[in-house]
């Protein structure tokens, strides 16, 4: 571990070097953006062909006794009678304008339906993030500072439980205790703060476990390094050493893994929304899949993939702010 408090002395070339770093950072960002766009294009293509490999939505939308003429009329009004390639080009072409076509079931632009459902999902995700940070960071620091003692084992047991418990089972247990048993909180629904509590805790359980576990182990690594020892030698108290010197260095692996875990978290969001009938994008995705609503499925799949890609892009970029060594070596 290098000492992150060491500053470069000002030299005549410092300004130029700074420009050089800026160019490199820009180049790095552009390259990552290119990869992100490529991955999203792949996802869009897979989603497009996957939904078309499955059953016929027209048959599902019409009553079983519909005539062939009615069927073909509906097919052409939905644009599903056009050649596959034309449909694909239209779909990809609409993406930059966020035009995902019209929903087959709701008869509305898919983008408007998504926009209607988005606030609920963002609210849930933000609340879960707050719960995660408020619980996991103190728990990780606490366990690392008391490594090997009873309180550390208690935290790690909780971590193991949290990582092994599927979100829908957490949700059902919480409903059983706090809604059915104590009548303290609503079992489902949306609108007030009380409705938010159980879903947010449900979604947060897994990420609390992941973050606390990683923060603990990476803090343990960092705390044995030289610059921490010298900080201790200067007479700082243990908590101050952790907060001022340890946490920043220990956050790097945590941020990396959180980026990779976003996929599980998105899956968790879908399950959590289902448990609590939360009117978000996750519920919408499941409805769309069971209705074979092609355009809506394509859009929701892309929405989740884009979230994953953007979060990981931010994770990559955050390295250079969290760790100066990354900034200078790139």
């Amino acid at each position: 571990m290098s000492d992150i408090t060491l500053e470069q002395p000002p030299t005549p070339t410092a300004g130029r070097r700074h420009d050089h770093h800026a160019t490199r950072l820009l180049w790095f960002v552009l390259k990552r953006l290119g990869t992100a766009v490529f991955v999203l294009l792949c996802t869009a293509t897979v989603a497009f062909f996957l939904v078309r490999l499955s059953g016929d939505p027209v048959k599902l939308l019409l009553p079983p006794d519909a005539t062939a003429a009615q069927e073909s009329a509906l097919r052409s009004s939905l644009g599903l009678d056009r050649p596959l390639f034309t449909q694909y080009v239209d779909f990809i072409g609409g993406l930059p304008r966020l035009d995902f076509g019209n929903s087959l079931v709701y008869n509305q632009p898919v983008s408007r339906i998504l926009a209607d459902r988005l606030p609920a999902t963002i609210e849930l995700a933000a609340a879960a993030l707050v719960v995660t940070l408020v619980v996991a960071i103190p728990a990780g620091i606490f366990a690392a500072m008391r490594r090997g003692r009873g309180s550390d084992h208690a935290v790690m047991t909780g971590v193991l439980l949290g990582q092994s418990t599927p979100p829908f089972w957490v949700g059902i247990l919480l409903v059983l205790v706090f809604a059915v048993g104590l009548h303290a909180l609503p079992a489902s629904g949306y609108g007030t703060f009380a409705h938010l509590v159980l879903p947010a805790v449900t979604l947060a359980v897994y990420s609390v476990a992941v973050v606390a576990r990683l923060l603990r182990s990476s803090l343990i690594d960092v705390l044995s390094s030289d610059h921490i020892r010298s900080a201790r030698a200067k007479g700082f108290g243990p908590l101050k050493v952790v907060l001022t010197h340890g946490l920043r260095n220990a956050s790097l692996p945590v941020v990396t893994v959180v980026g990779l875990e976003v996929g599980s978290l998105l899956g968790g969001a879908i399950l959590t929304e289902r448990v609590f009938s939360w009117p978000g994008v996750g519920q919408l995705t499941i409805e769309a899949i069971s209705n074979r609503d092609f355009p809506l499925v394509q859009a929701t799949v892309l929405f989740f993939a884009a979230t994953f890609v953007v979060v990981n892009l931010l994770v990559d970029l955050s390295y250079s702010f969290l760790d100066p060594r990354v900034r200078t070596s790139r």
Partner: protein
Amino acid sequence: MTVMTPAAADRVPAGTPTVGSGSVVLRALLRNKLAVLALAVLVLLLAAALFAPLIAPYDPNSQDLLLRLRPPAWQDGGSGAHPLGTDQLGRDMLSRVIYGARVSLLVGAGAALLAGAIGTVVGLVSGYFGGWADRVLMRLADIQLAFPALLLALAIVGFLGSGLWYVILVLGFTGWVSYARVVRSEVMSLRSRDFITEARAIGVTDATIMRRHLLPNVMAPLATIATLHVAAAVVAEASLSYLGLGVPKETVTWGSMLADGQLYLGTSWWVAVFPGIALMLTSLAINITGDALRDVADPKAYRR
């Protein structure tokens, strides 16, 4: 990483580097009390899954509409005939929980085997040959990681149809990346060792080197990942079944039992709670075993 030191691994005759280390691993595992408990739970579960028709008191799908939503034996209104009570169609909860272990473990093991096979081949090729093969395969791994696995599974199962084999295939094909990465990094460090260069010098083919000399040396980390992946696949299957998109309705799964049970939470807690406990115990026991395996295989990680 095997339990052998790197120096010892180099001196061992080619092809036999890890013979005998299985019992060492087992002995080390047995010293960890929690792992022993977890292993015992796993053996019980496996027995329940294998011998379900012999153990289960009833056919898990036989309905008795006169005995709907009966509580477990120890509650008022319960009886010894249905120790864990009955569900909304009068089906015996105990039999259903026992049968549920079948799908869970089959999907878990099947997905881990499939993902392990794909990931190991990719990792061996990528690490051994390097160059463009490595670049292509690792880029493929990056793209795979960018697809949220559960969402991909949801879309594929939702669209191609539900079925046990679909679920195994989907979870297998979405889970190979972690195996590939670990095998690749192990192989890259083994590649330049003496016993590999010597084998190559005497004309052993690449395929034989990979199969007989590299594969045995990556078995320990593979076992750890596979164990943890079984737990992940069990949970993923339950998630799909909970959403009603996994295996067909007639198949008894803990996930679909939980979905049914949630509707009756207000009056009949046992319909959701027993499959939930079974699911959590399974996932917990497999995770504890996996963690213990890792501690044995990689002593460096032990202090964490």
